[in-house]
C-alpha cells in the first residue's frame, strides 16, 4: 500500500455494460442510454478513490458490507470498527459511524460500543495479523463472551500493510519477507485456522468462510455478511465471516494469478463453507425475559 493519504475525490459515475454479469440486481429497463444501468455502487459507500492495490479483495469486501447495510436499511444503526492493517482507512469509504482501533484491539473496542448501544449493529473488520496475532486474546475473549457483533476477518495470509511479512495464517512453505525460505512449521508452527478454532466456543453463533475471487463466491460471501448482520438482532452470540482475501502486491502475483492461487492452494488449508450454523430453534428470537 502506498503511504500517501487517500484523497477524497469524486469518481465519475460508473456505468457498466450488461455484458458484465457481476450483480445483475439493478437491471434497468430503460434503453435510452447507450449503456443500460445494471448495477450501482451502494449509496452507503462514499464516492472516493480507494487506496487499495488493484485487484485487492479489501475494496470488494468493503463494498459487500456496505451493500448489505444498504439492503438491510441499517445505515443509521450500524457502527463499524476499523483495524490497523491495509483496511485502516475503512472509515474513509464506509458512510457510517466508525472507530479506528489500535492494532488487534478491534473486538475490545467493539465490545465497548455494543455493550452500551445494544440495539445497534456493530462490526469489526480485521486482517489476519490484526485479528489472529497481536489481537488473538481480544478475538477469543470477545467471541467467548458471545459479544453480539459481526467480525469480518480478511485472511490474506500476509501482513499486507507492512509489506508482506509472515502472518499467523501464512501457509506452510509460503515465502514472505520474514520467511524468505518459506514458512517452516518447525520454527513457526502451522497456519492458524481461526474459524475452526473459534467455532468451538459456545459464544460463536455463526461461522462461515468464503472467498471473493469469482462472481459466484462474491454472492455467497455477501449472503454470509447479510446473515451475520441479521443474526445480531437475535442477541445469540458472535457472527464470524472469514474471507480468504488476496494480496497481489505482496504475493508478487497479478490479481488474476492471486485469485487462481486462492482456488488452487489457499482453500486446501482453509476449506470454504459454513463452519458453524445456528440451530433452527436458535433462529426464533427470544425477548428480554427469555420466553420464546
Amino acid at each position, binding site marked *: 500500500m502506498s*503511504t*500517501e*493519504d487517500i484523497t477524497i475525490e469524486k469518481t465519475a459515475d460508473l456505468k457498466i455494460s450488461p455484458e458484465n454479469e457481476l450483480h445483475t440486481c439493478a437491471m434497468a429497463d430503460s434503453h435510452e442510454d447507450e449503456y443500460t444501468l445494471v448495477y450501482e455502487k451502494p449509496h452507503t459507500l462514499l464516492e472516493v478513490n480507494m487506496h487499495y492495490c488493484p485487484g485487492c479483495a479489501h475494496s470488494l469486501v468493503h463494498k459487500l458490507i456496505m451493500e448489505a447495510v444498504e439492503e438491510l436499511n441499517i*445505515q*443509521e*444503526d*450500524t*457502527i463499524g*470498527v*476499523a483495524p490497523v492493517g491495509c483496511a*485502516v*482507512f475503512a*472509515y474513509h469509504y*464506509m*458512510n*457510517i*459511524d*466508525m*472507530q*479506528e*482501533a*489500535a492494532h488487534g*484491539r478491534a473486538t*475490545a*473496542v*467493539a*465490545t*465497548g*460500543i*455494543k*455493550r*452500551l*448501544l*445494544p440495539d*445497534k449493529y456493530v462490526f469489526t473488520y480485521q486482517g489476519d495479523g490484526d485479528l489472529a496475532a497481536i489481537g488473538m*486474546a*481480544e478475538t477469543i*475473549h470477545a467471541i467467548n463472551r458471545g459479544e453480539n457483533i459481526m467480525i469480518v476477518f480478511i485472511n490474506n495470509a500476509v501482513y499486507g500493510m507492512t509489506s508482506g511479512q509472515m502472518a499467523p495464517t501464512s501457509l506452510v512453505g509460503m515465502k514472505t519477507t520474514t520467511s524468505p525460505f518459506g514458512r517452516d512449521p518447525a520454527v513457526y508452527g502451522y497456519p492458524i485456522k481461526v474459524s475452526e478454532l473459534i467455532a468451538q466456543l459456545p459464544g460463536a453463533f455463526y461461522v462461515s468462510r468464503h472467498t471473493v475471487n469469482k462472481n459466484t463466491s462474491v454472492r455467497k460471501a455477501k449472503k454470509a455478511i447479510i446473515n451475520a448482520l441479521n443474526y445480531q438482532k437475535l442477541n445469540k452470540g458472535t457472527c464470524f465471516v472469514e474471507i480468504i482475501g488476496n494480496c497481489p502486491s505482496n504475493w508478487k502475483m497479478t490479481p488474476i494469478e492471486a485469485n487462481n492461487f486462492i482456488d488452487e492452494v489457499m482453500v486446501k488449508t482453509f476449506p470454504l463453507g459454513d463452519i458453524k450454523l445456528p440451530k433452527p430453534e436458535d433462529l426464533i428470537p427470544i425477548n428480554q425475559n427469555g420466553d420464546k
Partner: protein
Amino acid sequence: METKLMKGNEALAEAAIQAGCDAYFGYPITPQSEVLEYLAREIPKYNTKEHIRVVLQAESEIASINMVYGAAGAGFRAMTSSSSPGISLMQEGISYIAGAELPCLIVNVNRAGPGLGTIQPGQGDYFQATKGGGHGDYKLIVLAPSSVQEMADFVFLGFDLADKYRNPVMILSDGAIGQMMEKVTFGNYTAHKTDKPWATTGKPPTRDRNYITSLHIQPEKLELSNLKLVEKYKEITKNEIRFEEVMTEDAEYIFVAYGLSARICHKAAIIARERGIKAGMFRPITLFPYPYKRLNELAEKVKLMLTVELNAGQMVEDVRLAVNGKVPVEFYGRLGGMIPTPEEIVTKLENLISYKNVN
C-alpha cells in the same frame, strides 16, 4: 449529604456510580480490585431500562482500555482502574485515546515497582502519568488524591474535566489511599455533562458520519492535530491548576509532596513547628497541569524546599524546574513500598538545616 466510613477504592467506585459513569471495564490487580468488585456488586442495582450501565471484567488491561475507547467514542462516561503493572499495559490505548481526544477516567492505584515490584504503595509512576507514558506527544490531566474524600471528589471532577476538554483524566492514587478507611461525604453532585455530537452513535441522514481516529497519515495534517492538542493543554494549564498550601504564609522551609506523601509531610510540618522550625507544606493536586508558578512565587520567601516522594526522585525535577535555582530543592524518598514516618522527614529537614548553617 451522606457521610460514610469507606475504603478509598470503594469511595472512588461509589463516586463513579454517582457521577453517572455508564461503563467500567477492568481487570483485577492489588491494591485496587475493590473498584471492580464494588461496581460489579452495586451497579446492577441502579440499572433501569432507560439507562443501562455496564460493568465488565475484561481479559486484560489492554482489553479494558480499548473497551473504554469504544464506549467513550460512542459518547458514554467510561472508566477503568488498575495498578502500576496494569497501567503500563494500558499505555498504548491511553495514547490512542489522547490522540482521538476521547474523554474518560483512568485510575492508577500506584504500587511500588519496577516489574512486579510489590503490592505496597509507591509513587514511582509519576513520570509515566505526567510526562506521557505512552508514545507520542500527549498529556493526561492528572489528579492526585491524598484522602478517601478526594478519591471520591476527584471522580466527579475528573469526569467533568474529561468531558470539558475531550481529554483522558488520570487519578493517580496509591496503595495506601486506596486501601485505607476514612470518613467520606457525598454531596449532591450534578454532572456537567456535555453534548457529544462527535460520538459514534449511528449516522442519521441529518449529519455526516462520525469517525473516531488518531490517524493522520499526512505529516501536514498530523502536525495540525498535534498543535491543536498543544493549544488544548495550554488552555488546561491556564484554567485547571489546583494545589493546597499548609502553613506556608510564614514558612521558611516547605515540604513539597502529593498524595500519601503529602499526608505524612503535613504531619511532619506540625512536628517541625513544635520544634521551632517554621515549616509548611505545598501539595500539588493537579500533577498535570503542574503548579510551577505558585512554587516559583513561594521560592521567593523560603530558605529551602524538601520534596518527599515514594520513589527515587521524580516530581522533584518539576519542583526544581519551578524554583529555577532560587532556593535549594532537596529530596527525600523511600522506595520499595516503604513509607517514611513524619519523624524521619523532620529529621531529614533538621539535618539539612544544620548542614546549611554549618556551611
